[in-house]
């Protein structure tokens, strides 16, 4: 976990390159669609509506490829070294999730800067910001652990890249990130409602934006995220040791 932080500080290129995509979404996609006014987002401007969605997207995209790093560690023998040590399997897996969480926090700060520069009306009360950072950690933990599970199953980089691509875009589009659930066709809404990303975005929409609407209630959002996280951790703890076989 600390290891990841040290690396991030020593080589921030990754952070910078990851900031490019949200800039494109907010500056280009957001502004153009705001001109069209084709999507009804209530009293919020379209840009304000998608800002939490793009934040969640950047959390998703930065942690869903976490499994690549795990496969790399396996190829280097780091996984073997960790698993031959007495450190608890649960600590190893949880440590990975926390490390991903810190990346998520950094991503969040970057998005805040972009959104502020674009004059999106951001909630700046400390409590909201702390809750957003909590969401970012939890969301990153969920998707990184999910990614670790996929890595344990596919075990090679090539297969992982294929599956990673296959999963991320549908997860993003089948969520409330860039349009509200009530304009979706019924089947898509059902999928979106079982997509954990939807609950992350729902919580973020209320917490990030002044006047943003939290539909399910924070209790439900956090309960769903914590449950999903706990289940994923349990699965990951069982699968992680098979990486060294």
């Amino acid at each position, binding site marked *: 976990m600390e*290891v990841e932080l040290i690396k991030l500080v020593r080589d921030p290129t990754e952070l910078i390159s990851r900031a490019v995509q949200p800039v494109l979404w907010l500056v280009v996609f957001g502004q153009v669609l705001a001109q069209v006014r084709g999507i009804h987002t209530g009293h919020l401007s379209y840009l304000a509506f998608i800002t939490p969605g793009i934040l969640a997207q950047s959390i998703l995209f930065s942690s869903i490829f976490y499994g690549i790093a795990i496969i790399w560690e396996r*190829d280097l*023998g780091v996984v*073997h*070294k960790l698993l*031959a*040590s*007495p450190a608890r399997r649960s600590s190893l897996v949880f440590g990975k999730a926390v490390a991903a969480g810190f990346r998520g926090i950094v991503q969040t700060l970057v998005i805040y800067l972009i959104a502020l520069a674009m004059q999106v009306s951001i909630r700046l009360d400390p409590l909201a910001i702390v809750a957003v950072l909590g969401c970012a950690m939890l969301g990153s933990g969920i998707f990184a652990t999910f990614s670790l599970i996929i890595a344990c199953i596919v075990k090679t980089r090539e297969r992982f890249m294929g599956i990673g691509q296959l999963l991320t875009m549908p997860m993003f589009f089948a969520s409330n990130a860039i349009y509200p659930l009530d304009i979706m066709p019924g089947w898509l809404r059902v999928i979106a409602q079982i997509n954990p990303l939807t609950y992350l975005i729902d919580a973020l929409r209320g917490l990030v934006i002044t006047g943003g609407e939290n539909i399910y209630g924070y209790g439900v959002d956090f309960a769903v995220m914590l449950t999903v996280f706990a289940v994923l951790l349990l699965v990951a703890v069982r699968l992680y040791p098979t990486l060294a076989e």
Partner: protein
Amino acid sequence: MNTIASDRLAIKASELTRQFGRLTAVDHVELQVPYGEIFGLLGANGAGKSTVIKMLTTLLPPTSGSAEVGGFDIIKSPGEVRRCIGYVSQLLSADGALTGYENLLLSAKLYGLPKAERSVRIADALDFMGLADSARKLVKTYSGGMIRRLELAQAMLHRPAILFLDEPTIGLDPVARHTVWDRLLDLRRDYGMTVLITTHDMEEAETLCDRLAILHRGRVSVVGKPAELRSGLGAGATMNDVFAHYAGGLIHESGAFSEVAQTRRTVRRLG
């Protein structure tokens, strides 16, 4: 083979077996390694050496049979086994983006060394492996020999009773190889460590190891001291003859493609 009282055995494997699908990679292997011995596992690619090490280090559950390491059962008490062993895989597992010191600190934490002891132990290990001057440099600037010594330092940090080394000198130049051997002999002398290595290298088998087991297609074909094994084949027999005789021909027998690819990758990284 003489039986040795089991409380003096660091490693004891009985009918240890592992199958991958239809392939029996390790087939009823018996091993008895007393404390303080440097023991070599030899065999062609794919003979089952790495699979034996993975089972003894609790990374891979056996299909059948059992083994005790440091007096603990690998299946019933894997946690206790992990506490008393050190392991260096065939791959280069030290983290190039961290300094030597940071790599060691990570190991100290993994093995739960108390905070107060960490810095002393790390300094000792760095001294012992001759890396004190490079401790603050990034590992990616190290030579292959230095990385191997750092990995040994990581594996010995918690003073394990038993060290497992999978091809510890693969890809190293002769000088670096001899340094690794010297350090292993020192570890045995100073701490009484038991060392189990796998190797293809006949010189390593002969000069470093007290006793050897040669594996062929997952079975132990012979166990003995290097000199005994040689004289058993008649006067003037070399270790190469011994290997050819017991390992079913020289190393041409094909290892799995992935294994060869992995070995090449390790060698390339050692540059």
